[in-house]
């Protein structure tokens, strides 16, 4: 009965779909010899029409099935997760320590990349998730960290470990410098200025040829060493010792990949530890209070200037960590690694993971870097799927994968 009633609407909807999809899906560009020809292709349009027709016709049963399925329920709630947190983390870290020795080189490489995004996500989480300051130019700090290390290594011949604190300090300074002019801004206006800051850094890197090498970037950035032991077939300096000679192993090209992964893991754990401490300290609580109500903060004697600057500075310095490591891993950087899309991805990681939730951010970072790699075979549909996943996420879990947990209920006494 209801199906009959829905039939005309379903028909008209599928016609509308045909109209909308015809110019996009119905026409293909075909190269024939030297000419490019337009070729009609009815199949995708027909598929879209059928899909819309069926979805409209069976809307009610579909809705029922959806509510019965309730995908949100499949993910654990914040309370349950909190109890398993410590054993779960230990297990995860243990698995991550052993895994690279058995996995393929490519997989370890992708995992390292995702750990870099974990670092970035955790850093931005301080600024956006905790302090509630929308920063669209976070990639600028990533770039400052990367270029600090690259240029220090190139011009002064310093190694990764000497440069890491220096580049973190430089990024923190950059964060503080950005913080000053934007102290008075809030919400959207803050977002615009930080967006501008990201672009300025990108343009500077591209055009300050004499310092940054412009679009050519910086080459031959040394890889990190293991307590002074290099990962190479032959030592780069006469008299140097390489890792495999010192331990009497055969040289394997994959060793350095595994080492980089483990190093990234250590850095992530370090950042996680520091942030975990920070948010329990009064300053962490002050960040959250600032996010909730800035005016109330001031009226309680909290200095918003100091709180905002500390959030910007600390958030930026973790971006610097990620940047320096990124430069070391790649061995080559140029401005194209620091475009706006990187800021957008890191922000997506924070929002998708659940603002202010550490584990959520880690999950989202891994998902957003590993999924595109896995889906590489789908080529141009990758971004489409990416967008689709985002939309579905916002429908099912608008507060993020694993929203920040806070005890909400009093236990019976």
């Amino acid at each position, binding site marked *: 009965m209801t199906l009959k009633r829905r039939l005309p609407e379903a028909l008209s909807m599928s016609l509308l779909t045909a109209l909308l999809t015809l110019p996009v899906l119905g026409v293909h560009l075909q190269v024939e010899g030297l000419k490019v020809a337009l070729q009609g292709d009815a199949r995708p349009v027909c598929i879209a029409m059928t899909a819309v027709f069926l979805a409209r016709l069976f809307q009610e049963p579909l809705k029922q099935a959806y509510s019965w399925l309730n995908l949100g329920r499949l993910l654990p709630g914040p309370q349950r997760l909190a109890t398993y947190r410590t054993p779960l983390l230990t297990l995860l870290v243990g698995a991550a320590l052993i895994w690279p020795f058995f996995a393929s080189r490519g997989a370890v490489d992708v995992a390292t990349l995702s750990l870099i995004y974990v670092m970035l996500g955790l850093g931005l989480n301080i600024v956006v998730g905790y302090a509630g300051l929308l920063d669209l130019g976070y990639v600028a700090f990533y770039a400052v960290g990367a270029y600090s290390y690259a240029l220090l290594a190139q011009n002064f011949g310093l190694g990764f470990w000497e440069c890491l604190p220096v580049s973190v300090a430089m990024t923190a300074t950059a964060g503080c410098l950005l913080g000053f002019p934007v102290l008075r801004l809030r919400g959207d206006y803050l977002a615009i200025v930080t967006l501008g800051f990201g672009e300025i850094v990108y343009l500077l890197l591209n055009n300050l040829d004499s310092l940054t090498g412009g679009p050519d970037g910086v080459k031959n950035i040394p890889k990190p060493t293991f307590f002074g032991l290099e990962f190479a077939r032959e030592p780069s300096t006469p008299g140097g010792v390489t890792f495999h000679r010192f331990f009497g192993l055969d040289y394997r090209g994959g060793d350095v990949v595994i080492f980089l992964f483990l190093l990234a893991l250590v850095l992530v754990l370090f950042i996680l530890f520091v942030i975990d401490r920070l948010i329990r300290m009064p300053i962490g609580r002050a960040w959250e209070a600032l996010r909730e109500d800035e005016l109330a903060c001031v009226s309680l004697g909290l200095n918003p200037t100091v709180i905002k600057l500390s959030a910007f500075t600390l958030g930026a310095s973790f971006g610097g960590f990620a940047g320096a490591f990124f430069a070391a891993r790649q061995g080559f950087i140029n401005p194209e690694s620091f475009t706006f899309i990187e800021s957008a991805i890191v922000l997506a990681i924070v929002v998708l993971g659940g603002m202010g939730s550490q584990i959520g951010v880690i999950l989202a970072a891994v998902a957003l870097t590993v999924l595109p790699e896995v889906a590489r075979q789908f080529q141009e549909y990758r971004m489409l799927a990416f967008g689709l996943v985002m939309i579905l996420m916002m429908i099912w879990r608008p507060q993020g994968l694993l929203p920040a947990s806070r*005890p909400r209920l009093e236990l019976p006494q």
Partner: protein
Amino acid sequence: MLKLEAVHTFYGPVEALKGVSLEVNAGEIVTLIGANGAGKSTLLKTVCGLPQATHGTITFAGEDITRKPTHLIMQSGLALAPEGRRIFPGLTVLENLHIGGFFADKSRLEADLERVYTLFPILKERRHQRGGTLSGGEQQMLAIARALMSRPTLLLLDEPSLGLAPLVIAQIFRILEAIRQEGVTIFLVEQNAHRALQLADRGYVLENGWIVLADTGANLLVNAAVRKAYLGG
């Protein structure tokens, strides 16, 4: 203790306070009543330095605070329970109170918590609950408790009765009396003139940015003009 002398405050071109002078002495409960838009909240905000007074001087405990930045004023023994409560809805009750005690001596934190829990037992029960899940009355109590956490000598209250049921208002006013007994001076801005004047030692009436009347609470309660304008005849 708190003294305003010929204070003018502007919002852009609009003069909200047109030379207000008033005084709050130690140990008193002083109330400021007035209609909507008279400038009551502006006066409290000016004391806190948001916005700053354009002319005149504000002294607190013998110190000129007219040009001091807000957060420093609020660290000098003054505390505000702002209009509309403005608690931190996403933080727990306990965290709200911790923020209130941000600059207080940390070794006395537990004692300070006990003190506000004694005044507001319901907050102890709800201490692990998010601020936003409290009822209106509980939120108002939290706002006052949060202000008390910095151990102020002068407590500024902006319309604590706003949007609350009469029974809850009565409860809150009883607690204000208890807070005064502990030696805290209270400056109360209210629309609920009847209750405020009953509680207060002295009162001021603000109209269009001017103080038009100043007297003891009891006298204002029977004042014909006040009765007509604010107490319903």
